[in-house]
C-alpha cells in the first residue's frame, strides 16, 4: 500500500484536479511503479463502480403546498390599520372598566382616612395637655343631643369649642374640618357616578367590534382570492 499522499494524488488525478506538470510527473511514476499502478487501478475501479450505480427516481413528487411551508395569503395594507384600531380600542375599553372599578374605591378610601385622622386628632387632644385638651371631653358630652353623625361629631364640636376658646390648636384644626365636611357631603353623589361615562365605553366597544369584523372580512376575502 502506498502512502496516503500518493493515494490522495491518485484520487485527484482521476478527477482532473492536478496541474499538467503534476499529472505528467504522476503518470511517469505510475508507469514505473507497479504498486502505485495497482493503487491507481483500485481507486479508478471504485470510482467507476459508483458512477455505474443506477440513478433512482423519486418515489413521489416532492412539490410543496402553501400549508406545508406555512404561507399565509397576502393581506391588504389597510389590514394593519384595522388590527391596530381593534387592539387599541380593546385596550382602552379594558382601561375604562378598570378605572371605573378602582375610582369609587379610592374615593371611599380617602373618605375613610379623613375621619380616622380626625378621630385620632381629637383623641390626641383628649390625652394631651393644654387648654384644648381640657375642653374636648366637655364638648363631647352634648353630642347625642345634637344628633350629628358620630364620626363627624367629635371634631366639629371640638372645633367649635376650640374656636370659642381661641386656642392655636383649634384654629389649626379648622380648615381640616371644613374640608372633611365637604368630602362627606359629596360622598353619596360620587358613589353612583362612574369615572368614564358609559357612552365612551359603548363607542370603544363598537370601534373594536367593527374593526374586528372588517379584519375578518378582509382575511376571508384574501383567502378566497388566494385559492
Amino acid at each position, binding site marked *: 500500500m502506498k502512502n*496516503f499522499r500518493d*493515494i*490522495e494524488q*491518485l*484520487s*485527484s488525478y482521476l*478527477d482532473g*484536479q492536478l496541474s499538467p506538470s503534476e499529472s505528467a510527473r504522476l503518470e511517469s511514476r505510475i508507469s514505473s511503479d507497479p504498486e502505485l499502478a*495497482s493503487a491507481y*487501478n*483500485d*481507486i*479508478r*475501479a*471504485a*470510482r*467507476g*463502480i*459508483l*458512477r*455505474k*450505480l*443506477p*440513478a*433512482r*427516481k*423519486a*418515489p*413521489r*413528487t*416532492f*412539490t*410543496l*403546498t*402553501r400549508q*406545508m*411551508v406555512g*404561507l399565509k395569503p397576502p393581506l391588504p395594507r389597510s389590514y394593519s390599520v384595522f388590527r391596530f384600531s381593534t387592539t387599541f380600542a380593546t385596550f382602552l375599553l379594558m382601561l375604562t372598566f378598570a378605572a371605573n372599578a378602582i375610582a369609587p374605591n379610592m374615593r371611599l378610601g380617602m373618605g375613610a382616612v379623613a375621619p380616622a385622622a380626625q378621630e385620632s386628632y381629637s383623641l390626641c387632644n383628649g390625652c394631651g395637655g393644654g387648654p384644648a385638651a381640657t375642653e374636648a371631653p366637655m364638648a363631647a358630652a352634648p353630642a347625642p343631643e345634637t344628633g350629628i353623625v358620630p364620626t363627624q361629631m367629635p371634631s366639629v364640636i371640638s372645633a367649635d369649642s376650640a374656636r370659642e376658646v381661641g386656642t392655636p390648636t383649634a384654629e389649626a384644626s379648622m380648615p381640616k374640618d371644613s374640608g372633611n365636611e365637604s368630602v362627606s357631603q359629596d360622598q353619596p353623589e360620587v358613589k353612583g357616578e362612574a369615572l368614564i361615562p358609559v357612552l365612551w365605553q359603548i363607542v370603544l366597544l363598537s370601534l373594536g367590534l367593527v374593526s374586528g369584523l372588517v379584519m375578518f372580512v378582509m382575511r376571508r376575502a384574501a383567502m378566497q382570492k388566494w385559492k
Partner: protein
Amino acid sequence: MDEPALIQTAQRGDLDSFNTLILHYQDMVFHTALRILGDEDQAADAAQEAFISAFRSIATFRGGSFKAWLMRTVTNACYDELRRQKRRPTTPLEPDTEDGEEMDSPRWLADPNMTPAQQSEADELEHAIQHCLDELPTDFRTVVVLADIQGMDYSEVATAARVPLGTIKSRLARARLRLRECLRGFEELLPSSFRLEEERNS
C-alpha cells in the same frame, strides 16, 4: 428551464416557481438522500424536509451553484435524520430458537450490519454498493456520494459539505480506498470491466 429567473421569483415567495425547481431536482435530491441514509422511506422524508427548508431559506441564496446549495440542504436533512436515529436506535428483531432465546448465528456475528434479508438483497450489485457506502463514516459517505454518484466537482462538493477543498480531496481518497476494500467481498457481482482490472492487478 430558466433557473436564475425561477430562483429569483421563488426568492420573492412564489411557490409555483420553486415547485418547478423541485420537479427538476427531486430525483437527484432523493437519490443523494437514499445513498447517504440507505433507506427509501427515510430518504423520501429527508428529501421533503430538505425542500421545505430550502424554500424557507431561499432568500439566503446569493448566487453560485444552486445545485450545490440545494445539496447542502439535503445533506443537512440527512444528518438530522441520522442524529435522530442515533438518539432513538432501533434494535433489529432476531428470530428465536426453539427454546425462545434469540438466535446468534456466527454469520450474523461476523457481519452485524447485514440481516439475512439484507444478505439476500445484497446479491444485487446495487445493494452491495449501498452496503459498502453504509460502512463508511457519514462525512466520507457524503463526499463520495456527491462527487462520484452525483458527479459534482470539488468546489461544489466543498460548498455542499461545508468543508475546505483540501478536506474534500483527502476524504474522497480515503472513501474510495475503503470502498474498494469493501467491494472486494462482492467480486462476483462486479461488472466484468471491474473484474478485469482485478485480474490485471493480480
